[in-house]
């Protein structure tokens, strides 16, 4: 990529010098580099009218389609979608609460917060004329300036108006700036006014031309911290209002103001950048005459409507309704020198008198810097007999003669005053030499050529055009040999360094040569340029391995892994301000020696291929670096050490699904709000494409994850405490970075909360316990039932084998046998049937009432045979009741009880009645007290009670009165 223009070496006998005095009114045409920034919207051609930098560093542009937020890479349009709403922005303002206020040409005002864009809608209605400025006073009241309706202020929810009827100078207001105690400066068509938000006294101070204001039309007001103001006027430029003296002061350099109307003022440390209506961009440095720039690299504009600076120091201009970004004074282009055709600049040199010598194509020009007033550029031509030559090296000796090294035509010595030029012919070595570099000290001058190194010794008194130098080749030992030498450099210790093609870097000190190459760890053997920084370190660039730094003992390499943009460097130089400037084909890198950080100036500035020649770089006494390219000269005057190259990291949106939840405080989310997304950015407008990001979600990731995206999603997060951290940096290893973070917490779902689990466990335990208890009870009941049944069976069996019953039955039988044989047979059959019943039913748990009545009636028949009519049974049972069930042999036992416990005789008959009563059965008998009581264990009745208790909740009711006994048993 390094051009090495070849020309056949020519023999020159003599040279003819032409110099032309060029002066006149042509401006010397140094201008800042400017690059157009395209922010496209759907609507296509958008006009940009106002701009703002917010406190965090983000840039906002007011356009004909609304306001656009721009972070260097991504732009977002904020516009009101109401049909018919004109989104043409006419002013922008950021208040102390970080809200962006937008004034529209239609008179409307809107404000932008985390909740989106909302219209400001006081009930009084809004102006109908364009809003030219918005501000807030020290009490926080909103002020609106309009073009034609005066100004408004909003206090306690009431909108007030101040116009000419209230004492305002003019209803056309252009600018607002807050002053003390709630008052507000207003710039109008008829002077500067200070107003108060007080409906009784609205206008408190007025300034016109009569009170010292240079011009009545006050278009721009920029407040300063001490209460002073910069004021931009229609015709008289810029003046300063000194608050302490209430006076207006115009600096001496700005007394003459030929630049017309002032549209915008941006103050920086070195001066004021002023956007004008007719004279483009004006820079008024302190103690300097203002300079106007209208021609930029291939661009021309005369109207600059707004100018601001970003936090890195780049200028942003709105001109011709477009956005232009510029490095400002730091990188300037010199592409127009009067009468000079700026073509390939092969080499440059700053002389001791402040002139810059450069060689466009085959010419030689001495250029005297350049400021507002044009300075002469002096052109010299070396014209040998037949062909022109390329000049590739320059040197100024102690007598201020300029040594001109050519490609193939040796060295010429020029008297810059007279223009006289003589070729150095003292040796055939120089006849056709291609001299790549010349360096000297005192009366020794060294030349680096394609045929080795040459030493030229000149006499002490060299103030004549004709000198007879001693020319000798160096290196009799052939250490340097006849290799190409690209550069020669004499350092502060008077050592002579040679950059060779093939032999590495060679140092000549005290008559001895030392060669540094692979043995010292230097990769490659081709060295192109050498320079020295203010600490005495020697720096050199190699063909393919980047830079090396030699601190006297060690060589250290700086290459692309350290941040160097390109390993192919056309030239390097130390700027003596702590940096090394390294030029490559797409621009140049500035290396901060102490921190190792790079600043990059390349395509973002507007450079395309710059095609800089080998070592076409120089530094002047002011520390400005001049770089020659194929079309122009680039001047770099940055001192970037004050701004560390760190992008500003911002989280622009934190959202759950698609709802915005931007908030400074920690946010607590419910368990199903677990889909989080973050948008973030790193502001570095100088090189937005170099910004890299790293993020980590504490509580989820364990390491930093690198990304170039500006968006990250975390779906399905588990409940917990999190902190999203994101960093941005320009360097791959994040040595310089800034960080932003967002903390949030996702709650456990109810069913995972401790108290819930505890409650659930307790409830479950209780339920299980209760169920178990129920089961146990059930089992126990069954057990008891079984036991009772067995008991009953036993008792029944016991009672049924009652010998008394048999004895009485047999007795009865004997009586019947004697009376009636047929009856007797019937009696025995019934008795047998009765016992069969017992056998049949005793194992059942329950039998129907019908069946039980059958048993009971059989038993009654048997007993009646004994007692005759003294024993009476009455049965009144419904058919329904007969279908119900009771335990077997209960009635029989109850009847037996009745007979057992009562006397039965003709005087005392026994009536037993069995009646049904819905769901129960009542057995009643009258009481006839017996004289002799048969043995009774009372177990029968108890057994019945027990059996029923096990089978049903309904109680067995025993009613024992003096005259009757009844038992009520439930039917099942």
């Amino acid at each position, binding site marked *: 990529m390094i051009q090495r223009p070849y020309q056949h070496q020519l023999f020159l006998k003599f040279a003819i010098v032409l110099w032309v005095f060029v002066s006149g009114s042509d401006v010397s045409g140094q201008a800042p580099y400017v690059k157009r920034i395209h922010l496209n919207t759907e609507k296509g051609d958008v006009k940009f009218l106002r701009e703002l930098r917010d406190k965090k560093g983000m840039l906002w542009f007011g356009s004909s389609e609304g306001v656009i937020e721009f972070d260097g890479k991504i732009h977002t349009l904020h516009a009101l979608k109401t049909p018919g709403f004109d989104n043409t922005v006419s002013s922008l303002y950021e208040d102390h609460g970080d809200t962006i206020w937008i004034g529209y040409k239609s008179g409307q005002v809107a404000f932008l917060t985390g909740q989106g864009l909302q219209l400001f809608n006081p*009930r*009084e*209605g809004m*102006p*109908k004329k364009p809003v030219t400025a918005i501000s807030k006073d020290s009490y926080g009241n909103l002020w609106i300036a309009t073009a034609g*309706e005066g100004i408004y202020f909003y206090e306690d929810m*009431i*909108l*007030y*108006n101040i*116009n000419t*009827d209230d004492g305002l100078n003019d209803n056309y207001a252009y600018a607002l700036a807050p002053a003390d105690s709630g008052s507000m400066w207003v710039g109008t068509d008829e002077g500067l006014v200070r107003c108060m938000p007080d*409906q009784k006294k609205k206008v408190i101070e007025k300034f016109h031309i009569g009170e010292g204001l240079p011009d009545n039309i006050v278009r721009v007001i920029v407040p300063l911290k001490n209460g002073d103001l910069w004021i931009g006027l229609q015709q008289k430029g810029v003046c300063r209002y000194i608050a302490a003296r209430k006076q207006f002061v115009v600096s001496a350099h700005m007394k003459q103001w030929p630049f017309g109307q002032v549209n915008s003022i941006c103050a920086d440390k070195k001066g004021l950048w002023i956007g004008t209506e007719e004279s483009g961009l004006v820079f008024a440095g302190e103690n300097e005459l203002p300079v106007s720039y209208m021609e930029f690299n291939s661009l021309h504009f005369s109207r600059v409507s707004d100018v601001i600076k970003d936090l890195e120091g780049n200028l942003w201009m709105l001109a011709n309704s477009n956005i232009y970004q510029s490095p400002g004074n730091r990188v300037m282009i010199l592409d127009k020198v009067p009468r000079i055709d700026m073509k390939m600049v092969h080499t440059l040199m700053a002389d001791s008198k402040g002139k810059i010598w450069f060689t466009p194509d085959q010419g030689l020009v001495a250029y005297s810097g350049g400021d507002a007033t044009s300075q002469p550029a002096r052109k010299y031509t070396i014209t040998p007999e037949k062909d022109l030559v390329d000049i590739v090296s320059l040197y100024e000796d102690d007598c201020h003669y300029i040594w001109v090294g050519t490609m193939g035509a040796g060295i010429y010595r020029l008297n810059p005053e007279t223009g006289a030029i003589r070729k150095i012919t003292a040796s055939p070595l120089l006849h056709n030499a291609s001299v790549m570099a010349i360096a000297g000290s005192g009366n020794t001058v060294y030349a680096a050529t394609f045929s080795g190194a040459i030493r030229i010794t000149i006499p002490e008194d060299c103030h004549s055009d004709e000198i007879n130098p001693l020319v000798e080749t160096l290196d009799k030992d052939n250490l340097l040999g006849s290799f190409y030498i690209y550069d020669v450099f004499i350092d502060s210790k008077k050592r002579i360094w040679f950059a060779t093609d093939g032999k590495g870097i060679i140092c000549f000190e005290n008559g001895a040569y030392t060669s540094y190459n692979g043995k010292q760890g230097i990769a490659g053997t081709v060295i192109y340029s050498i320079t020295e920084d203010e600490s005495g370190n020697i720096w050199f660039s190699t063909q393919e391995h980047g830079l090396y730094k030699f601190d006297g003992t060690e060589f250290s390499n700086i290459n692309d892994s350290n941040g160097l943009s390109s390993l192919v460097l056309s030239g390097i130089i130390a700027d003596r301000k702590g940096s090394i400037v390294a030029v490559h084909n797409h621009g140049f890198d500035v290396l901060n020696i102490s921190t190792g950080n790079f600043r990059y100036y390349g395509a973002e500035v507007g450079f395309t291929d710059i095609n800089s020649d080998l070592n076409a770089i120089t530094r002047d006494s002011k520390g400005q670096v001049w770089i020659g390219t194929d079309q122009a000269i680039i001047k770099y005057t940055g001192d970037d050490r004050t701004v560390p190259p760190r992008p500003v990291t911002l989280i622009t949106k934190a959202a759950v699904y698609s709802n915005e939840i931007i908030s400074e405080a920690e946010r607590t989310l419910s368990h199903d709000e677990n889909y989080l997304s973050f948008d973030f950015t790193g502001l570095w407008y100088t090189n937005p494409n170099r910004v890299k990001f790293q993020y980590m979600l504490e509580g989820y990731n364990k390491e930093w994850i690198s990304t170039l995206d500006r968006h990250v999603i975390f779906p399905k997060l588990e409940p917990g405490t999190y902190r999203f951290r994101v960093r941005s940096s320009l360097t791959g290893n994040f040595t310089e970075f800034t960080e932003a973070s967002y903390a949030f917490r996702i709650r456990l779902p109810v069913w995972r909360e401790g108290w819930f689990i505890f409650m659930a466990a307790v409830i479950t335990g209780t339920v299980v316990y209760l169920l178990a208890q129920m089961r146990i009870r059930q089992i126990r009941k069954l057990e008891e039932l079984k036991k009772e049944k067995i008991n009953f069976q036993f008792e029944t069996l016991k009672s049924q084998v009652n010998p008394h019953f048999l004895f009485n039955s047999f007795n009865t039988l004997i009586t019947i046998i004697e009376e009636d044989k047929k009856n007797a047979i019937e009696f025995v059959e019934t008795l047998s049937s009765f016992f069969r019943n017992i056998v049949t039913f005793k194992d059942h748990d329950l039998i129907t009432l019908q069946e039980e009545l059958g048993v009971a009636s059989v038993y009654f028949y048997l007993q009646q045979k004994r007692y005759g009519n003294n024993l009476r049974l009455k049965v009144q049972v419904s058919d329904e009741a007969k279908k119900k069930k009771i335990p077997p042999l209960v009635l029989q036992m109850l009847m037996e009880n009745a007979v057992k416990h009562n006397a039965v005789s003709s005087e005392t008959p026994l009536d037993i009645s069995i009646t049904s009563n819905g769901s129960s059965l009542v057995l009643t008998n009258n009481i006839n007290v017996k004289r002799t009581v048969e043995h009774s264990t009372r177990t029968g009745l108890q057994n019945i009670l027990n059996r029923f208790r096990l089978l049903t909740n309904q109680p067995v009711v025993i009613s024992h009165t003096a005259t009757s006994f009844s038992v009520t048993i439930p039917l099942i």
Partner: protein
Amino acid sequence: MKLVNCLALILILGFNKQDSPDNYKTDRGKVRFNSEAQLEIINASSTRLRGVLNPVKRTFAFAVPVSSFEGFNAALQRDHFNENYLESDRFPVATFTGKIIEELSYPPNGALEVRAKGMLTIHGVEQERIIKVSITMIDGIMHVFSRFNVSLKDHDIKVPKVVHEKIASEISIEVQAELKKGI
């Protein structure tokens, strides 16, 4: 206070005295006010609004006698209104005078929504207000309509605490008038 009222009347009379042929006037405009509080709604109106508007100079002056409001829910309420709240014996007139912000064509035509910027004086206390007004010209008569709110606090109208739930702190006012050109 009397001074203010005098000035208000003078203003109106002044307009009349100027007797510019451009003036549009009325003395029978209607003013209604509506107070909607938690416990009570009060509506009252007056048809004695006097007003004049000069469309060339864009100036206007309106005045209504406070005691001319009728339609209260009870006579006692009206008495309180006049004696205690608005003190109409001390401040008999409520006025609004000022200038219209927008440009008006002359002669005015069609229907316009303009903003009237002026001093609203009620209960002797002035408050600068910008009030939206719609002006419609029909057959040479200027129909003026406006609806706006008045905050009791702005005009130092004090309502005792016991009655707070019956009177709203912001009263909504409706003005309707037909102004005719002429002397």
